[in-house]
């Protein structure tokens, strides 16, 4: 048996709401290997962010827990860096300073000033933001902000990189660029990554495994698809690739045929005393 890098061990998550307890996740169970790229896909509101937040330590699982390299996760920390959907850079700091804040916090004791400066610049260069280091978030585009957000996360040298719809707010072209960059970085650094996405193509293109989640309440992992496409992957070549299209088809089928949200299904999956928060779920899948 191989050593478990990251173990999401029978995680259940309940939220207290004014209308009673809402069971968001039930028995989510997933083991992730070192250097693996895993994406989470599922309909809006099913609980993807909740899974990510539990791994990040921002939420505490009601049952079960997360073990990273043999240690239980119970608070947030820089070994599990998060890239948030809307960049969440500090608007009063430049790109450089934003990354610096993280680097100082993580390497303040082990690196000297020059080494830190080099490290910050190295990470900004990695995401192709070296030329706009000293600009503030308001002065750069959405894609550039997201790049800086990724640089900040990478600069912490995390054991796991958590990304919550990192490219969700970007236009299609910028998104494609960012995916290329991410694959490049991944080839170089071989990070362990969990990424949430709504984009089936993105999931297939980037992932080693695609984790498909059932609809909430009490969402859990419905199916796991192993993507065995050779790297480096090229989106243009893959467009006609039979295997690629097979994977795409599998994900689409899961989302639209097996997890299609209907009024009837909602009624069935709703537990007693639970609010019907999910009555209007719009599948946002591209």
């Amino acid at each position: 048996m191989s050593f478990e890098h990251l173990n999401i061990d029978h995680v259940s998550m309940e939220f207290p709401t004014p209308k009673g307890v809402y069971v968001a996740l039930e028995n989510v169970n997933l083991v992730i290997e070192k250097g693996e790229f895993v994406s989470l896909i599922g309909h809006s509101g099913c609980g993807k962010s909740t899974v990510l937040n539990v791994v990040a330590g921002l939420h505490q699982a009601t049952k079960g827990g997360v073990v990273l390299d043999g240690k239980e996760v119970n608070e947030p920390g820089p070994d599990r860096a998060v890239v948030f959907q809307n960049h969440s850079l500090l608007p009063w700091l430049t790109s450089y300073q934003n990354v610096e804040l993280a680097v100082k916090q993580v390497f303040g004791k082990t690196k000297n000033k020059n080494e830190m400066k080099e490290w910050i610049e190295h990470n900004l260069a990695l995401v192709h933001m070296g030329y706009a280091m000293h600009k503030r978030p308001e002065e750069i585009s959405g894609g550039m902000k997201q790049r800086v957000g990724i640089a900040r996360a990478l600069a912490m040298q995390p054991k796991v990189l958590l990304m919550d719809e990192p490219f969700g707010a970007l236009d299609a072209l910028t998104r494609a660029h960012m995916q290329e960059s991410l694959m490049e970085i991944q080839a170089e650094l071989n990070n362990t990554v969990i990424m949430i996405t709504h984009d089936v193509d993105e999931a297939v293109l980037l992932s080693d495994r695609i984790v498909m989640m059932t609809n909430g309440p009490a969402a859990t992992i419905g199916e796991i698809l192993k993507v065995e496409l050779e790297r480096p992957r090229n989106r243009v070549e893959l467009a006609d690739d039979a295997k690629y299209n097979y994977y795409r088809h599998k994900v689409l089928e899961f989302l639209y045929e097996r997890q299609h949200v209907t009024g009837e299904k909602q009624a069935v999956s709703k537990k007693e005393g639970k609010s019907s928060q999910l009555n209007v779920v719009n599948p946002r899948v591209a």
Partner: protein
Amino acid sequence: MYASVFKNITSEDLKAMIRALLLPLIAMSIFLGVWSASAAQVQTSLGQLPGPADVYKQASNLYDEHIAERDKEAAFYARQEERNAKKLEANADAEIKVRSYTGKATFFDQIITSLITVFTGFMIASLIAIPIGIVTGLSNGLYQAINPIVQLLKPVSPLAWLPIVTMIVSAVYVTDDPMFSKSYVTSAITVTLCCMWPTLINTAVGVSTMDKDLNNVSKVLRLGWLTNIYKIVLPSSMPMIFTGLRLSLSIGWMVLIAAEMLAQNPGLGKFVWDEFQNGSSNSLGRIIVAVIAIGLIGFMLDRTMLLLQRRFSWDKTAVLR
């Protein structure tokens, strides 16, 4: 030469410039006209209500009085020095007396007193309100605990605080050699009590409505409590804090004038009250000069805060009015 400067000015720009200058000018002339005409209709026990021309005359009177008073003061010190020098010449060990001049406070002295007082009260208020605002903004429980007290104290009029503050200051602030006069302390504390609430509330709201993601960033980085406040909470709520500070300062200025009037504390308020009691034919004109000065200073204080806000707030896009 000039042509090159004006070359880039289009007729559109010119129109905009003329409008920016002309419209306020027209409004001002209408205002003065209406004032002048209606003042002539009002007879008070102190004579006719002064129009703009009378007020202007009183303003220059006040200025002349100020200059005269300064001259008197200079003369007083010159005489005293001369006297002492003579004494020392006669006997090197002679005891010399140095007294400070105690002339009547002029209009301009009163302005300075008022400014110093409002500034003191405002500073104390900010030093109390911003930390409390941050702490209450960070903790939901504390916010709920403190909110009723704040809401209860916020609308209390300065006139209600004043007697209490006066009594407390008289009872507590007893020293043989007071560094500050009691009236100054009383006015400043009254200002503090009335003007701290907008800063407190705005700071608390600014902190509690902070972007949740930024909070999460701080958690993921495991920033310490102080670092979190200094690096994330304070800058992100700076625009709201400044909104509060501006409100506080303008309330403080209004409150101060009322407090000085009621408590006979030195300052512009006392000047107005004295003129009212004085009841000469010039009094109304002088009071109107004071009113205009109060308005102008209030306006300038607000502009100063705005400049500070522009300087210290990262959010340059925020609407600043």
